[in-house]
């Protein structure tokens, strides 16, 4: 099984050796991949309000600036309220399903995390976070793609997968990442008629060695692998109950890929709807509904994978946070720092990481936003190095952390 990646990397000479690789060697390779680590990156597009997701109720500056959308301080036994995490921070009540993961120390929070770039443009900030290069738009590839590229070459067509219609910026690059809308639809859809599929496959399986044929062969390798692994038939395990919404569907299918041992190393899913300029709500309301889907999907994912979570880290991110004070429409505008979550095996959970910058006016960024005290690249680097075992420097060119490591991963 020759892939475009090995072709590009190894050059023409290596082809002969690869082309004749017997099946049993490939099976061995696959078995080794199956035991590998998986990173699941989750993007909350639209800038999630970190101050509602993980509320700093202990900060005296919090309550006053959010008269209608602020969360009430936690109180023992009142599950309608946010849940106390450590006497200072509390988890939004819609995220309550995540609490057992907090207690079992597999869920950690990094607060006041964000980009050194000050843009409040969604698309610029997303671009910067996905490429891993704040302020630089000319970066051709994404940091997740570079992370996969930095790992030893493997033969699986499923090393990097994005659930969605297109390849996100963060997985663009020369690692042959696959994007798919759903496992079911990842096939030639010709009904019961197998001849069209066979025809397309034959068209791509032989002929010149170029990008198109190489990708075509990879594609049909992936299609066949997926079909033989019956990944899409694997039901959620351990009673996991995914919310029936796009994000829940995405995580459910990523779990299927992991359980089917198809060689997944990096997966990506995103969720929209965090841009709460108007009518954000507090314990209940618009944001709470989004958080319920978000937390519900993460919880189901962890439950579904069970013991396999030991090899998986889920990392959530959002392009920036929102204004500390609520605006005139009971919402929040574009801000600066936000909160990110890390979940899974090796995460030293049950802790909120990062230095808290404070909510006093003089402590705010530009007098209005939560200041960034942890560069998102510090967090991402630690996850990449500790979990995926790749050096951070090529992933985040030009970045040298001035802060001590968070120590979020064992």
């Amino acid at each position, binding site marked *: 099984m020759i892939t475009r990646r090995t072709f590009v990397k190894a050059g023409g000479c290596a082809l002969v050796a690869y082309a004749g690789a017997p099946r049993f060697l490939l099976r061995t390779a696959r078995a080794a991949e199956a035991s590998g680590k998986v990173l699941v990156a989750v993007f909350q597009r639209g800038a999630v309000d970190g101050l509602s997701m993980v509320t700093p109720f202990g900060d005296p500056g919090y309550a006053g600036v959010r008269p209608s959308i602020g969360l009430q301080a936690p109180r023992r036994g009142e599950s309608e309220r946010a849940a106390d995490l450590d006497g200072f921070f509390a988890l939004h009540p819609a995220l309550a399903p995540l609490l057992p993961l907090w207690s079992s120390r597999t869920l950690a929070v990094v607060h006041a995390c964000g980009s050194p770039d000050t843009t409040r443009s969604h698309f610029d900030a997303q671009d910067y976070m996905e490429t891993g290069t704040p302020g630089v*738009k000319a970066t051709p590839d994404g940091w997740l793609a570079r992370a996969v590229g930095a790992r030893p070459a493997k033969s699986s067509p499923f090393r990097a997968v994005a659930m969605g219609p297109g390849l996100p910026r963060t997985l663009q690059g020369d690692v042959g990442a696959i994007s798919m809308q759903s496992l079911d639809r990842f096939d030639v859809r010709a009904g019961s008629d197998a001849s069209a599929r066979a025809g397309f496959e034959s068209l791509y399986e032989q002929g010149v060695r170029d990008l198109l044929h190489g990708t075509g062969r990879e*594609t049909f390798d992936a299609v066949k692998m997926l079909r033989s692994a019956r990944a899409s038939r694997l039901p959620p395990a351990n009673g996991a109950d995914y919310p029936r919404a796009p994000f829940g569907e995405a995580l459910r299918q990523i779990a299927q890929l992991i359980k089917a041992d198809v060689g997944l190393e990096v997966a990506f899913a995103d969720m929209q709807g965090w841009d709460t300029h108007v*009518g954000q709500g507090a314990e209940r309301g618009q944001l709470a509904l989004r958080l319920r889907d978000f937390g519900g999907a993460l919880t189901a994912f962890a439950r579904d994978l069970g013991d396999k979570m030991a090899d998986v880290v889920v990392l959530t991110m959002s392009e920036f946070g929102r204004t500390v004070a609520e605006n005139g429409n009971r919402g929040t505008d574009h801000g600066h720092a936000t909160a990110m979550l890390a979940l899974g095996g090796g995460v030293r959970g049950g802790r909120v990481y990062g230095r808290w910058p404070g909510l006093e006016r003089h402590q705010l960024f530009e007098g209005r936003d939560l200041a960034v005290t942890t560069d998102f690249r510090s967090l991402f680097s630690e996850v990449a190095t500790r979990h995926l075992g790749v050096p951070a420097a090529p992933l985040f060119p030009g970045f040298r952390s001035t802060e001590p490591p968070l120590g979020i991963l064992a």
Partner: protein
Amino acid sequence: VLGLGLVGLLVAPATRAAGADRSAAMPALAAPAPVAPTVSAEDRRILHTLSRLTYGARPGDLERVRAMGVLAWIDRQLRPGTIDDGPTERALAELPTLRRPIPELLRDFPRPDPRLRAQIASGEMSRQEMMERYPIEKRPARIAAELGAAKVVRAVTSERQLEEVMVEFWFNHFNVFAGKGDVRWYVSAYEREAIRPHAMGKFPDLVRATAHHPAMLFYLDNWLSARPDYRVLAGPNRGRKAGLNENYARELMELHTLGVDGGYTQADVTEVARAFTGWTIDRPQTSGHFIFRPGMHDTGEKIVLGHRIRAGGGRDDGERVIEILTRHSATARHVATKLVRRFVSDAPPPGLVARVAGTYTSTGGDIPLMLRTIFESPEFYGEAAYQAKIKKPFEFVASAVRALGGTTDARGGMALARASAEIGEPLYQAQPPTGYADRAEVWVNAGALLARMNFALGLALGRYPGVSVELGALVAGADPSSPAAVLDRLLASIVADQAGPRTRAVLAAQLSEPQITRLTPDDRGPANTDVAKLAALVIGSPEFQRR
């Protein structure tokens, strides 16, 4: 001429021995597929020209261009005003937002009432109730959707093919994202007013038109950019400091003119941003047109790339910057590089880039003359350029419809725009200011390739409402009881006999599949599902992904 017997091709069928590692049987390094000998050198030249200057050849195009002479045909395409395009204009009449001015669109496609969303979220209002109060065809997203449908209709049916190619090229060069804020109301006007009139004109006029357009002013935030001590006078942000915003200044140099290696510094970015302060939008939510606000403008002196712009220039500062940038040799090189990449190869030959840049410099950025420099170059017709480009998803979709002799109405345009999105290129939805990439690696990936194959099946089987394809006409004259003859006709019309021997052999082998040879001469005629399947295979073949 087309009667290349299939018997000879069946010598090398795709053996499918169970359990065998098929890749082991592959030659390590296959030579590029030779072109079928039936295509003459002159036809090859015509086919290449058609593949680069149009959204793909339709049945009969080869013969038409041959009769006219390829040079005369290019001349005509370079003067689109001389080409009648009545049928396209009539098809576009079904898309009412297309020609409407911004203030009318702002009035008739209001932004969603924030309370509606809150009422939905809280359960006060049902989704159905909301759909009635705020139907989809009244939402601002309709504007970009109609613009996308129009783009499809034009690409499929317009006789002014090169002009359409250039409108797409320049929109992408001066990209705005229809999903960013108020751009959704401005985007159709942007293409109509800023891009289309100059697509075959002079490059500096494109820079000027886009710099003044509310879509660009909003998209790259220049409308908010003000002198450092400026405070907002009115509205919800009254009293707030609104300082300098460098977004437009940077992209103007990096992407629109000089190029990322064009030799400007951060100091130049700041100076250019200062020059454009006060270029803003008048009442963005009701009027939405360009206005210069002296109160926001930084009146001091600016130095841009060594040129002194005197204090007190006001609005003219920005005009002066555009003049400096569009006369710069780095701009000539940058624009030439992108044009050569579009028309010749992902790796633009440096010699040709230099000559096109020379044309830019000597003609003040005359677009038809730069194009002529490309079309008359040996590089354009060189072996290295032939079939060297991978079609972008939109190019693939449009060329597939054209190759099958298809037509589309406005509804079909919407369906085909969605198909382009499924293959990875949602129209007018490129978020970053770089627009969509013009390189193969970006578009070739597993999910996208399957989506291309599935589109090919759907199109050939007639599953896109509003789109009709003429399979019957394609295979007319072929003996419908002879699958081989039908295949010959399909290959001749869809890929003009340019399929490699592998593809021919694979397709010929397909003829032995029972589901293909079910081909019957009786009830449904030649345009039955089996012809459709063969046509789909040709559309989904590697050859058809190239241009």
